Each structure stands twice: as structure tokens, then as C-alpha cells.
């Protein structure tokens, strides 16, 4: 049981809703993923419905907004006996620890960026749902892998990189080189590196030790 990880004193104050193969199904539509989950009823589920009651709302809004308002981000159906079913056509995934645990502790958000629950590990789901989730993560966190570093030039506080990625050569610019290179350790102790460029793009070097000598020499200074 995942709940066992929470210290006794904190349990019951705020509950983390864990989603897994037993309580949640991942759905797909138009290339986006959604979910149907059966969860314990919580206080939040009651306030959810409130906006639906009032009608004044639609007077002010342009009609373009109407449709979105009509379909709530999460549809909540009371199943009785303290359970509710939540249906979201579209969900968003967010990594809680993107650098060191990319496939664990995934927050699941609805369209309004409200958290529906947490996925402790993708392993809590079976195929093909696991693949759906994994692909969604890779889609959101697009991080090409750098195979070789061809050139690093530093000038006036910026550094210019030319690297070989899996899809070919890529040049990018870092604003503050030292702060743009993030070191993380994988669970098995390898040193993994993330490079954040000026546009907000990310690149990954999965194992620094495995870089060829020339590439390593170019990045050594920043490690």
C-alpha cells in the first residue's frame, strides 16, 4: 500500500489521492488522454458543482466561452456509498521530480489545472495505459538526447553549443552556462545532465561517463 510511506502523524490531515490500475482507467481521444476514476468522495467534490447552478454567468460571457463552461473540466458522478466517479476528457501530467524521478510521482491535473490525483509510478498501470502515460510525458517534456558535443564557445556571458542529437546537429544558446546545466543522479547512481537553453528547451545527457573524450572535455569545466 502506498499510504505506508506517509508518517503516522501527518496521515489523515491531507490525503493524497493515488491513481492506479485498480481505481483508474486512462482514455484517449484526438491524441489527448483523459481518465475515468472511482475515488473516495471528498469535500471538494461538493463545491465543484456550484458554478453550474447559476445562470447569470452566461449573460456576461461571449458565446465562444459557453461551450467550455457547459462541459466542466471533470465530470463527477456520485456513486453513493462514499464513492464518486470522476470523468475527465483531457488530463495533464506534471512530473513532481522531473530530473531524478521522471516516471514516478506524476501529478494528474484537469483542464483547470486542478489536481485530480497522483500517480506514484507508471508501474502502477498495465499496458497499454502505461504506454499512453509514458508517451504523454515524453510529449510534454520534450527532451532530446545529446550524443556528442561538437563545439562550445563562450562569449560575453552567453555560450553557444553545437551538439549532435539523435535527429542530427543542433545549435543552441545558454544564457548563464553554469546555472543552465543541471546535474541529477539516476537511481542507479549514474550522473545525468540536463541542459536548459535560452528558449526554454531542454537537452539530456543520460550518462556523462559514457560521453566520448572530446565531448567530455568540452563540458568538464561546467560540472
Amino acid at each position: 500500500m502506498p499510504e505506508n510511506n506517509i508518517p503516522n502523524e501527518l496521515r489523515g490531515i491531507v490525503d493524497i489521492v493515488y491513481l492506479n490500475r485498480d481505481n483508474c482507467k486512462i482514455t484517449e481521444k484526438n491524441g489527448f488522454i483523459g481518465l475515468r476514476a472511482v475515488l473516495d468522495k471528498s469535500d471538494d467534490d461538493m463545491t465543484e458543482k456550484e458554478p453550474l447552478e447559476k445562470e447569470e454567468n452566461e449573460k456576461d460571457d461571449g458565446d465562444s466561452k459557453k461551450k467550455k463552461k457547459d462541459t466542466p473540466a471533470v465530470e463527477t458522478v456520485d456513486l453513493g456509498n462514499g464513492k464518486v466517479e470522476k470523468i475527465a476528457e483531457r488530463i495533464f501530467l506534471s512530473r513532481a521530480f522531473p530530473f531524478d524521478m521522471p516516471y514516478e510521482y506524476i501529478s494528474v491535473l484537469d483542464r483547470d489545472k486542478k489536481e485530480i490525483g497522483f500517480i506514484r509510478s507508471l508501474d502502477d498501470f498495465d499496458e497499454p495505459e502505461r504506454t499512453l502515460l509514458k508517451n504523454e510525458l515524453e510529449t510534454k517534456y520534450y527532451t532530446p538526447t545529446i550524443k556528442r558535443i561538437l563545439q562550445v564557445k563562450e562569449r560575453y556571458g552567453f555560450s553557444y553549443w553545437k551538439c549532435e542529437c539523435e535527429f542530427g546537429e543542433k545549435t543552441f544558446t545558454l544564457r548563464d552556462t553554469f546555472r543552465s546545466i543541471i546535474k541529477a543522479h539516476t537511481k542507479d547512481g549514474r550522473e545525468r545532465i540536463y541542459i536548459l537553453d535560452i528558449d526554454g528547451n531542454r537537452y539530456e545527457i543520460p550518462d556523462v561517463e559514457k560521453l566520448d573524450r572530446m565531448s567530455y572535455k568540452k563540458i568538464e569545466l561546467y560540472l
Partner: protein
Amino acid sequence: MAKQTETILDAEQIADERVRERTEALLEKLHDVDSQLSHEDVIVAFTYDLADRADDENLTDQRVDGLVALTKDTLTVYQNGKKHKEIPLDKAEDFRTTPGVGSVIAECTYDGHDMLVCRGDNSHTAEYGAIMKRINRYNETGEFNTEFMRELNRVCEKCGRPFPPGSSVCPRCVDKKGIMKRLLAIAKPYRWHLILSVVLFFVITAVNLLTPYLNRILVDDFIKSETPEAVVISQFIIVIISLAAVNVTTNLLSILRSRVLVHAGNRVIVTLREMVFGKIQMMSISRISKRTAGELMTRVNSDTNRIRQFITATMPDLAEQALMLIAVATMLFIYDWRLALLIIFPAPIVSVSFRLFWRKMRRMWNKSWHMDSKSSTVLHDIFSGIRVVKAFGMEEREADRFDEISKKQRDIRIENERMWAIVWHILSFFMGIGEFFLLFYVGNKILGGEMTLGEMTQFSAYVSMIYGPLRWIANIPRRLVDFLTSTAKVFEIIDENVDVADKEDAVDLKIKGTIDFENVSFGYDETTDVLKKINLHIEPGEMIGIVGKSGVGKSTLINLLMRMYDIGEGSIKVDGVDLRDISQDSLRSQIGVVLQETFLFAGTIYANIAYAKQDATRDEVITASKIAGAHEFIMKLPDAYNTTVGEKGHTLSGGERQRVSIARALLHNPRILILDEATASLDTETEHQIQESLQKLIKDRTTLAIAHRLSTLRNATRLIVLDKGTIAETGTHDELMRQKGIYYGLVMAQRQMSRMSPKNTAKE
């Protein structure tokens, strides 16, 4: 001045040219993919580079070659040379972007469901945001505005490369010569100082050159005199006195010279700092908040300082050392050209080897510099958080942490020093090799009777004089790099465009207090709108309460009214005049603001209250603080209104600060009063008091108040409930309560809260 505008126009032209070229290339590519599409039909086309979603075959490499074209009623998406999908516009709406991490998705709602348009890496974020917004507008009005493309394609006028985001200086070609020219322009008023210092140095050098000559006389004519009995003691004394005189003169001249330089240098730095500081003040909040306070401080302080060093130390040194080199070398050559060649010959070897070692050394220094800064960061961290450290009993852990860094620092330093020690001695040896040749050559000559011992002393002195400049020149690259980096950073700020600028024909308006928001949409970046189509009319004298959850755009609304940012769409009018047509001075001088986070400047309480109205009388200040409920506590302080507050002064509590800043806003006597959570940190009773005084004051002023504590707003003529960036509800307290909408929910929630604490219930 004229020249500057010219270059700006050029850059615009290049950008337009770039837009045209890109568009043409895109159209051509489109034609290759879809020959049925004629150029005229395409309203806008853009590219994308990532597949719709990741799958097993392209898990991390998601690149594709994609194109999107907007035609009259369809958005067509192509991928890898084939038609991928078509989105008919009549069923599509709400085009938007969803930011990923390292990627961005352009999507829309199609037939009630989300639909992906295309996906690209993060460099497309601004572009997609702008295009999606305009497709929405096109869908409503049938117009597509392509103005934004120029802004997205802004290029450096020199190399034609786009600027890095958030900067208007191209880092690739901050022109070194240009920088020197501009610096010289700044240094120009002090050119006489600089010239004088060089002249002085020339004199000092010339006088210094006398010393070896005098030494020679001393050695040849007196110490080694072949006829010691002929030595006249008075002459001997004259030589000694001359030596002393030379020494005194050079020292006096040196003092004079450094005084001249310090004088000029400090003026240069003041000019530079004024330029940078002035510019920072002119920049809008959006630009300023892009940089951290620390970064701006560095630019104003240490970067300008480094430039000063260059102007007052490196530049004159450069001139002087060059002069010295030429002078001494000429003397040596005149004296004996063969000897001179022998001495100078190792110099190029040393220079070359120095350059080779240079790269290695620079890397090492860089490493050690970063280690130093890391260790000081850790120290700063620990000391400023010392209460937390102690409270959690983490002293030992922190000590270990610092220990570890110190050890690393030590290792790097030891390695550096070891390296440096070896390199330095080898280099010195090579430098000194000339002296061995000299000894051999001169020794031969003396033995052969062609040269006297005194002449040799003189010669060796000159030789040592020439090595100084030679070594110094080897150091130039490092200083130059330092300096150019700093200068580029400083000029980057000075060159930045002022984004919220007054129009040339901006008017000074005497504000009555009508405010109109017409279709105002605004986002801090292109992708997300914080406020969407806000329409609001406020009569003079109204008190409007703004209510809503955190993050719905309440403060943004107010920032826009103060014109901290310029809006993207719609217009905000005060008394029927667009904000952009009113001079910022006159606008802000008639708006009084009390913010949630109060800020007191270092100075007396009096000065802080009188900040907005420098010519306020003492009576006015006291009246204002009485209304604000500040008078009472101020009088309890021993120094009353003369109490120093701010960083080093007396510490006021949060509520006290708040009241001082309310007094400040009141004294300002504004036509429009803005209270942004102004009374949030006061207890209910004090708040009540202030509310009552404010009530009198608010009477004929337009007031906008943001408050989470809803009881604060009970006097508001109207309440506005913001939700998700739009106005969800408007009306008086009673009307809204009857509606049982969002406001009702908020009030109920707060009542429940206050019921839990019995003290508050009594007040109600």
C-alpha cells in the same frame, strides 16, 4: 541622435525583409507539398518541428518536418510532405497554446472537443501564441493582422541574426570597436585628465631613465675611479643628491598622476552609473522583473566599476607601457643594436608559450572563481538563515556542508597554484635567458676593455625596465576579456528600448475620475491571457471592490490602470482619454496606491510620508497620518516623526508600516485611490478605524479596492468578481448575495471561518 534613428529603421527593414523572405520560402515549400494551394489564398503559414505525440518509435527524437497554412476557411496541417489533417474553421474555436516543458502545443476546440493543431519546441512559444490569438480574431472578424511578425523577427542590424529573447543586443556581435568608440565618447570630457596622466607618466619615465645613467657615473667615475685621489667629494655629493632628487621627483609626479586619474575615473563611473540607473528607472516593470535585483545591482555597481578600471587604469597603462617599451627599446638599440636583439629575442617565444598556457590557466581560474562564488553563496545562505539552522538543530550538517565545499575549494586552489608555480617559473626562466646572453656578451666586452663596469650597470637597468612592459603585454588579453564582458552588459541595459514610453503628444490630464476598460485583454507573455476581454465603466467617486480568488488577475487589473504595462488589446480610458495618450507623470501623480507589500525607504517616517508630496507642510503630514491611524503609534516612538525607518532604522511592525504607507497615499491627494489589500495586515479593530476615516476621504474620489477580507468592502458602491480572467459577477453586496454565485460562496466560506474564532464573531 539622428544616426541612432537611422539604424533602428534599418533593423526594421531587415526584419521586414526577413519576414518577406521567410514567407516566400514557406509559400514555396507549401507549393511543393500541395500544388493545389495558390499563394494568394494563404493568409498565414508557419512551421512546426515535433510530431503530434511521442510513441515508441520516436520516444525522444520526435522531430518531423511540418507546415501549417491558414486559408479562407480552413487550417491545413502538413507533415513530412503530406497532408496531415484539415481543420475547418467554422467548427473550430478557442485557438490557444498549451505550454509543455521544452515543447509547446497549439490546439483548439473542435466540435466541443480538444484538438491538436501542431507541436513545436519551445522556440516557437511566442510565435504560436501570437498566431493562435490572431486566428481567433480572424474567426470572429475576418481580419488577420501580421504586424507581430516583424516583432518576432527582430534582428541584429549587423549580422542579421535574431536577438536572444528579452534582449535587444546581439551577443554575437557586440562590436568591440563600437564599444571602444562609445566608451571613448563617455571618457571624452576627461580626455585632458587622461592625456595629462600619460604626459606625466612620460616625464616620470624620462626622469627614471636618468637613474641608470647616474648610477653609471657613480660606478665609473667614483667607485671604480682609476684615480681615487682625484675624486672631488663635492661632486660625489652632487651625484648622490641628484639620485635622491630623481627619486623624489618621480614620487611626487606619481602622486599627482594618480590624483588626476582618480578624479577622472570617478567622474566616468558616475556618468556611467547615471546612464544605467536612469535607464533602469525608465524601463517598465515587465522588463525590470525579467532580471533579478542582484543582477541589476551588479550591472550598476561592479560592471561599471570594471569599466572605470579599464578607463583609468588599463587604458593609460596600455599607452604608458607601450611608450616605455618603445623608449627603452630605442635607447638600447641606439646604444648597441646587437645587444638589444639578444635581449628582445626571447620575448616572442615567451609570448607564444604564454598564450598556449593561457587557455589552460583560464579554465582553471574559471573553475576556482566559480568555486569561490559557490562557497560564498553557501556562507551567505547559512548566515541569513541562521535562525532556521539553529531552530532545526542543523548546525553540524551545515558545518559539514561548508567543510566539504572548503575542501573542494582547497583542492582546486592547490592544483591551480601548483600549475601556476611551474608555468610561472618556466616562463620567467625563458624571459631571463636574454640576461645570460647579456652577461656573456658584456663580460667579453669588459674583459676586452671595450666597456666599463658602469656602462654595464646602466645597460642591465634598462634591460630590467624593458621586461616589465613585455610581461604586462602578455596579460592584456585577460583584462580585455573582463572588460569587454562588463561593457557589453552595461551597454545592453543602456541600449534597451523603453517599452512603456510616453507618446510625443502625450497630454497632462486633470483627472476627474471616470475609468473605462474597453475589451481589455492582457497577458504577461504571448501564450496566456491573464485578463480576457474586460469591460468596465466606473463613474467618478465610485468605490469599486474587486473580489476573486488569488491569481485571477486582480492586481494585474490595477497594474494596467497605473500603466505599469501596456495592454495588448482593447483600451483603458481615464475621463475618456486613452491611457497611452496621457503622460505617465500626470497619470501617476493623480493615482494614489497602497500596496499589499509596503515599502519604506531608509529615512525618517516624516520623509516617508512626505515622499509623494515633497512640499507638504508638517500639518498636512500629521493630518494624513491621523486619517491613516498612524499618528497614535508614531507619537509613542521616542523620536516621533523623526524616527528613522527602513533597513537600518527602527523596525516597525507590518501593521505600522501599512499605516505609514496609507498616510503616504493620502497625502498624495489622488483623484484615483487604489487599495491593494491595503488593510490586510491590520487587526480588525484598527482596520475598522481606518475604514471609517477612509470613508470620509473616499467620498468624491474614484476608489478601487482589492480585499480578501470581504467585510473591508462593505462600503463599496459596486463589487466586481473576477474569475479566470473575466468579470464573472458585478453588483452590490446585496445583489450578489441574492445571486448566490461565486461571491456568495466566498462570503459563506469566510463566515464559516470567522465563526470558528469567537473573537471575530463578537465584532460582527
